[in-house]
């Protein structure tokens, strides 16, 4: 190793003394560009029209889902065994038999690494691709998509179901916060809050209201100019209630939320719980042109009793209805549906949480926070399925190959969605901030 770098130093020394000085200096730079990222040309890939983020809130255990360590010592390997998938050489948890049959569709990144082991900070990092800063709240990936993407659909551009997600629009206008679909999705007649006509009000009357509001805001908008550099980003168009009006005028848009119109068998295939129904709703939304949906699945902060939380769900359940079987059912139904309709090719699915869990099982039979290495699964939308990218070490403690940062993940998602990650956004006070900093494309994921 010493020789190598002395050689390099030697080369550069000679270089600076020779006519090739400039060239060698460049060579040296390009050697390091991969890590700094500054010289890499970062164009877009644009393979995906839309993205469904399955957010496993709380931090799912990599060691019990996508990166099992059957050869590790007893106190590390955990209660579950790996099973073979339909791709030779790839094994995942025995609690995910349905996904095991679809491994050809997804890629597993087993070397994601982050320094942040506290929920709030880690959430922010994974959901935005930026480490948290005390001075600036960065926008989540979905909010950036909402901000940049023009859609013909009148539906919100970014939704979160069945609850809100911790990172939102950040410094972007709050209209790019996810539209939260609350309510009990498992009910047969689920309807979203406030999205039906008030008794006595029809489209005609809403049109009158819109006309009057425009007349009134014309005056206010000529007065409301106190934020100089922010006119573009923080325009007041949303104050005209445009999107809300459009949604009300468009029966198709309102119909998107009517899970009741799905056949009972389909709803059952996704699983009767909120998570499965959220996946189904997410599918309906992206089919109608929504570019980004986050499905929030919380409860993964499993500090105790892995068997109960991850497998059983409640005492004596057979088969288990815990976190992993529920994930397996809903997610596999989603992948099935999208792949049979051909939509998987243009729909990026990302399955992740804010960190992994400690390799060593604690006294309560659970695992604590572990950001140093964890796994993320991705499918569709330009992802080359049927592969494992990167690796963790023997006990799942640290990345062994190809460490991937949350910034790299965000960069890859942006590029697949056709968004140039070096493009700059402006904060409210006019400061330019690159959409993605320090991230680089995870090449094997996209077959590059």
């Amino acid at each position, binding site marked *: 190793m010493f020789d190598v770098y002395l050689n390099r130093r030697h080369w550069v020394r000679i270089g600076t003394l020779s006519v090739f000085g400039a060239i060698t200096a460049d060579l040296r730079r390009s050697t390091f560009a991969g890590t700094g990222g500054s010289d890499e040309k970062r164009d877009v890939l644009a393979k995906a029209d839309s993205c469904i983020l399955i957010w496993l809130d709380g931090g799912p255990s990599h060691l019990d889902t996508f990166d099992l360590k059957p050869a590790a010592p007893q106190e590390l390997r955990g209660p579950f065994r790996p099973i073979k998938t339909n791709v030779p050489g790839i094994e995942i948890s025995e609690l995910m038999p349905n996904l095991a049959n679809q491994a050809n569709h997804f890629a597993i990144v087993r070397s994601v690494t982050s320094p942040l082991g506290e929920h709030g900070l880690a959430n922010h990092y994974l959901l935005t691709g930026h480490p948290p800063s005390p001075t600036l709240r960065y926008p989540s990936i979905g909010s950036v998509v909402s901000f940049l993407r023009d859609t013909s659909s009148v539906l919100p551009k970014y939704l979160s179901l069945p609850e809100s997600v911790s990172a939102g629009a950040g410094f972007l206008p709050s*209209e790019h916060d996810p539209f939260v679909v609350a309510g009990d999705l498992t009910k047969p007649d689920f309807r979203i809050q406030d999205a039906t006509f008030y008794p006595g009000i029809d489209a005609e009357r809403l049109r009158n209201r819109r006309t009057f509001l425009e007349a009134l805001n014309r005056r*206010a908008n000529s007065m409301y100019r106190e934020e100089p550099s922010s006119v573009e980003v923080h325009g007041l168009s949303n104050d005209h209630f445009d999107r809300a009006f459009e949604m009300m005028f468009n029966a198709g848009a309102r119909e998107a939320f009517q899970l009741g119109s799905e056949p009972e068998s389909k709803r059952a295939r996704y699983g009767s719980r909120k998570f499965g129904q959220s996946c189904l709703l997410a599918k309906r939304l992206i089919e109608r042109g929504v570019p980004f949906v986050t499905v929030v699945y919380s409860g993964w902060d499993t500090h105790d009793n892995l068997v109960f939380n991850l497998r059983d769900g409640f005492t004596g359940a057979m088969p288990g209805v815990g976190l992993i079987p529920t994930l397996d059912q809903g997610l596999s139904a989603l992948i099935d549906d999208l792949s049979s309709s051909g939509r998987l090719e243009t729909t990026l699915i990302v399955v992740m949480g804010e960190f992994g869990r400690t390799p060593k099982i604690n006294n309560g039979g659970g695992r604590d926070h572990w950001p140093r290495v964890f796994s993320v699964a991705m499918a569709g939308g330009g992802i080359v399925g049927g592969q494992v990218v990167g690796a963790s070490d023997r006990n799942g403690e640290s990345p062994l190959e190809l460490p991937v940062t949350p910034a790299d993940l965000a960069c890859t998602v942006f590029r697949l969605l056709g968004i140039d990650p070096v493009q700059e956004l402006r904060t409210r006070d006019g400061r330019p901030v690159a959409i993605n900093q320090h991230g680089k494309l995870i090449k094997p994921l996209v077959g590059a």
Partner: protein
Amino acid sequence: MFKLTWLMGYCLIGLLSASNEGEPSLDSDILPWMTKLGCNAGNCHGSAAGRGGFHLSLFASDPAADYEAIVHELEGRRIDRIFPERSLVLAKPTGYLDHGGGIIAEDDSPFSELLAAWIGKGAKRTSPRATLHLDVQPIDVLVSSSEELVELQIRAQYSDGHEETVMSKSSIVLPDDGSVSLVDENKLRVLRPGQHTVLVRFMDKVVAVTLSHKFADAAIPDDPRAVENTIDKHIVSRLRDLGLTFSPAASDSRWLRRVTLDLTGRLPTLDELNQFQSESSSNRYESVVDRLLSSEAFVDFWTFRLGRWLKIHEQPKGRAAFEAYRNWLRQCVALDVGFDRMVRELLLAEGDSHENGAANFHRLCEDARKEAEVVARLFMGTRMECANCHDHPLDRWKQDDYHGFAALFAGVQRERVVKLQGRGVVHHPKTGESATPRIPGIAALAQTSPTIQHFADWLTASDNAFFAPAIVNMLWKQFFGRGLVDPYNDFRETNPASHPPLLQELAKEMGRDGYRLRPWIKRVVLSNTYRTDSEDGDGESIDPRFYAKTIYRPLEAEVYVDAIRDVLMPSTRDDNGPHGVRAIHPIDRANASSSLQVMNGCMRQDDCSADEVANLGLAAQLHLMNSDLINALLTDPNGQLQIWERDQVPIHERLENIFLRALTRNPTTHEWNAWNDESKSRNPDEQTKLLEDLVWSLLVSKEFRCNH
């Protein structure tokens, strides 16, 4: 080949030794350069976990630890005293070895040469050095054009008596928006009109330099409105400096709406409006303010506002405590108890929190550290959280301050019966030992072990530098939409006020008035600055920091909901049951009605910024459109619209009346036209519905949802 390289290495050292008389110092040469190059920044080796296995203290706040990391860690492999250029700490940043951060210094950069020389001389830290004072000149400067360069002089005085110019090794942090650029290492060019802050960092000292650039060079004529009031004097003189014009005064009716909303959280009634407009005496403004200040509505509203500030909220099964706390606060507002006394009571209250309302303050936080953070934010306007894990990189706070301050609250028993004497310690994460209680920023006290009592005495003493400015700034934000220091609870040496002398004078005046709310408010709302118009005729947009005109401030969700009700259901206006029909009454945001939850989109955050509320999200828009909130009141049989309908009041009268109630103005020609266009071909029944639609639009319009 190898020999050649080594030989060159020797030469390099030889050269440096000859050119550098004294030995480079780790503390005042090497580490400042590392800061300048970003090595010890939070996103690199300065992060809590370090980077690539190499951890440096954030911005070199702990040179002793950095010395250990550089010289001794990794079995000393980071340095090579014989062949300095083979040292990891040198070969990595210069690019000879893989470096996650890329190449950050050339071989012949001062940093590389200093570092090589220091390592060659044995990498010693013989005499630790601290900077006692960092002198930066100038720190506040006004330029007329970007041609005018501002030359900085930066000198450090060290603890060992030395003094030197440290220009080249100081870090100059420019604002990110490209408004200031650095020329020739020590000159600043201001590229854009406005006020900008540049930070100068050397060792553990940071100094903020304020650079102002005129908007226009034209001479601004004297404005007679500048002399009446402390506020106007400073605001107008700053505007003049910057070449900006002070907006003319708002119309009387607009001012009345503004001040009534600010003082009572209500719209002026038609009677109040008529009475005010019929008066012509010069003291009519003052008499309105006096009337509002002495009203019950003022007490209600400021209990609500201060309750939000203090984060008073109802805990599960905590109704009794909540009521006691609210009643205590209401009493303070009603009697105009000074902030100094209120805060002392909050800090020192003990006993049953169901009876002694103020004692609930200590129950807000789950532990001593959180309480210290909240106390610092509320009463000192400062954010100490950063200093939990490391010395605050942008302020004076050391880790010792944070944990020592937290230790003051370690003995608080946070149960129904609050006690301040219990046992408890806060462990200093560095030493692992219990932190010595201390008042932040005060190294040594007469008392060996200060208590909350000592802290309260110190905080509310008339010469305290934090308390009055923090309170003044919090109040200022309520009236002007932003703090003189902004964010309002982020006082820092590196976040200077927009008008420092004004803040100081207001703080002094507040002290003279016994820290009471009413005199302070009266002075503010009678100023010409508060009275400027919000309408911007020529469309010129100007940084709101200079208060050339009044900005649109969104109403609090509770005030907005109450205002809707007041416009549509005037008969229930003063119908206050024990829990009140008005939304401002239960100041508990966590348990608010579903409407408030939707409208308060930013509830989750600790501090909602104004524009979060101004720009309604889709959920709030749909709620206003399709929920009961407005729709039910439009058709309520006891509501104003239906009463008029029964009484057959002419439609145009209803329309004018509703505009006056909601916006204290008549409809414009344009608005009349919009109404006439839509209504002319309709029968009376349809016109009634159309009026409902117009009123709905009025109540969701920006003009109604904001104070301006």
